[in-house]
């Protein structure tokens, strides 16, 4: 088990600039063995947390992307039917029991993410991404798995977890999750980073950005987020924009107001927002950036 300070340091080394509370959440995950539910706007870096966590624990990241209609055969396991059939044809005339034992053996089992996660020797990080997109039934099934960490396969028997994975769930809030699932998890709300943190993120992720430019970009983005927009730019958009500015060899935002306005397309992803942030608005925002 790692202490909070170690976790905070390891997160930093993994290139994730965390807010102070995230390290506590990760320490609690270990101590209480509860999954961590991350909520927040799209683009605030929820998925990145899981990736950073995997590198903190120096372990594998297993990802399950949820979607409407996701079922057990895509999430948990499935038999390799084609192979089973070939095997039956090949052993035609052999003892039926023997054939059956063979075709329902390990070799014919296809592992899907959830099964894979509980069968590793070292506990991996299991990222269940956008759980709100999955159906209610799948959520109930997941709840059961997350409390027992065992899977029963009728033809095969019960598989118990060899190591309890570190489970991270993310949700964009397109649907209200069940209270049972929420209670089972630790909860962390991921907010847009503040100016300082965003500037540090830009500096670690984008090459060729100096401290003052990173700070200017972060301030500008903060100003844009405060405008009434349909789609508020996330951290990924900020990084795109920073990379674009570096590519256009902008060293100081005040030196190139035209370029700033023209490259805002990296941040504003709907036509409505593009029209709202006019040249005047972008100049006004730029004026506030010290």
């Amino acid at each position, binding site marked *: 088990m790692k202490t909070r300070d170690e976790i905070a340091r390891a997160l930093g080394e993994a290139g994730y600039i965390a807010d*102070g*509370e995230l390290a*506590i*959440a990760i320490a*609690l995950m270990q*101590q*209480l063995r*509860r999954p*961590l*539910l991350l*909520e927040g706007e799209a683009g605030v870096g929820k998925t990145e947390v899981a990736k950073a966590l995997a590198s903190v624990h120096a372990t594998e990241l297993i990802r399950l992307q949820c979607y*409407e*209609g996701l079922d057990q055969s895509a999430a948990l396991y499935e*038999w390799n*039917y*084609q192979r*089973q*059939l070939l095997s*039956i*044809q090949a052993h*035609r005339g052999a003892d039926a029991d023997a054939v059956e034992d063979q*075709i329902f053996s390990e070799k014919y089992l296809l592992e899907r993410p959830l099964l894979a996660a509980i069968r590793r020797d070292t506990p991996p990080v299991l990222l269940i991404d956008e759980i709100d997109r999955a159906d209610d039934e799948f959520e109930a099934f997941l709840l059961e798995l997350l409390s027992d960490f065992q899977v029963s396969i009728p033809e095969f028997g019960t598989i118990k977890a060899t190591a309890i994975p570190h489970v991270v769930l993310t949700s964009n*809030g397109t*649907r*209200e999750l069940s*209270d049972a699932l*929420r*209670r089972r*998890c*630790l*909860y*962390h*709300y991921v907010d847009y980073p503040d100016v300082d943190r965003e500037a540090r993120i830009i500096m670690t992720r984008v090459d060729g950005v100096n401290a003052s430019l990173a700070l200017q970009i972060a301030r500008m983005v903060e100003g844009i987020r405060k405008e009434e927009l*349909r789609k508020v730019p996330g951290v990924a958009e900020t990084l795109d924009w920073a990379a674009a500015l570096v590519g256009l060899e902008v060293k100081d935002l005040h030196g190139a107001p035209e370029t700033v306005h023209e490259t805002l397309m990296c941040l504003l992803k709907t036509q*409505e927002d593009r029209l709202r942030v006019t040249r005047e608005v972008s100049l006004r925002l730029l004026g506030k950036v010290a």
Partner: protein
Amino acid sequence: MSCCGASPDIEDVNEVSRLVTGKLAAFLRTLRDSGFAVGLSEGQDAAALMATGYAERPGLLRSALKHLLTARKSEWDRFDGIFDAFWLGKRVRSRSITTGAAKAANSPSLKSLPNQQAEARGEAEAMMDQVPSVDGAETERSGEGRMEGASRADNLAEVDFRKLADPEQIELAHEAAARLARAMRTRLTRRDLARRRGYRLDLRRTIHGNISHGGVPISLVKRQRKPKPLRLVVLLDASGSMSMYTGVFLRFIHGVLDEFREAEAFLFHTRLAHVSDAMKEKDAGRALDRLSIMAQGAGGGTRIGECLQTFNRWHAARVIHSRTCVMIVSDGYETGDAALLGREMAALGRRCRRIVWLNPMMGWRGYAPEARGIKAALPHVDLYAPAHTLASLTALEPYLARL
């Protein structure tokens, strides 16, 4: 719960831990009172945390307990205040506790009742507005069981919303509207499930199911297309002429939005506001608080045509699909261009499956749709129905179920 490195007297330690546990239990009670869903196992984990060094610094304990005991954004935001008030004796910012539906309903911008209505209080219950039958809905809504939970407000079902006077009654009506919305969703879903039928062959599952026959496909597995859930898009008129009804409808929409898998809500008066996000706040009181800010500017005229134009231009492509029902709640008093309203209604009608226009005024005795706006809009409306009582809202359900 073993405290590591406890050198002092065991008795003392026990005494301290007993006190701490008692205080923790009181804190959990406070949280439950504030609407947090804190279970037994969370309590145990919290106690375990306090025994393992998290109690050394208040900031640390606050953050740890926050992760453990909150479950959604609204709780996440309120937790620090409650924690500080309880453990550090600081005063909670009043904003975080004085939210409640009854209060929101009485807040100035969402005022659902002007004072002159108060005198009608006495005869309100006795008087019953006519409910024009809606596609035979009148017969459908017999039997109290169908109201599912609304029985507590039985006498409210037939009372015009604008005649509800005292806050308690309003609150009851709001609750009934929320429950009604929930019940409607449950039943609509049930019908959907019963209707499922497959028509395409699922090859993979067929092979799987026929392994026992050596792979000869004897029993076929069909695949059904997952029925697209009915999507509801609500456009609520929040102008001055509607102010008596806005509160109840907001609550109804909040219930519908929470329960319908796919629903979007918009408010309009002189301009259109997309309010789905605010409505998705779990706590109805807080949702209404957020909305009352958005609804500001309400009370002036209504430019339904222009608002619909904005809707068609910017939102329709995203929120409308083939199984979408657009529900417009408005009295149809258009202060803008009636011709524009007609054009936009036609454009909207081409896009969506059904347009339902709910008009609270329609329940009034002697009301005829003579306002310019409503006249221009009516040709494009599939269902024009009253919505001034809970019963008239219930009557809508069979119609929605058929979509």
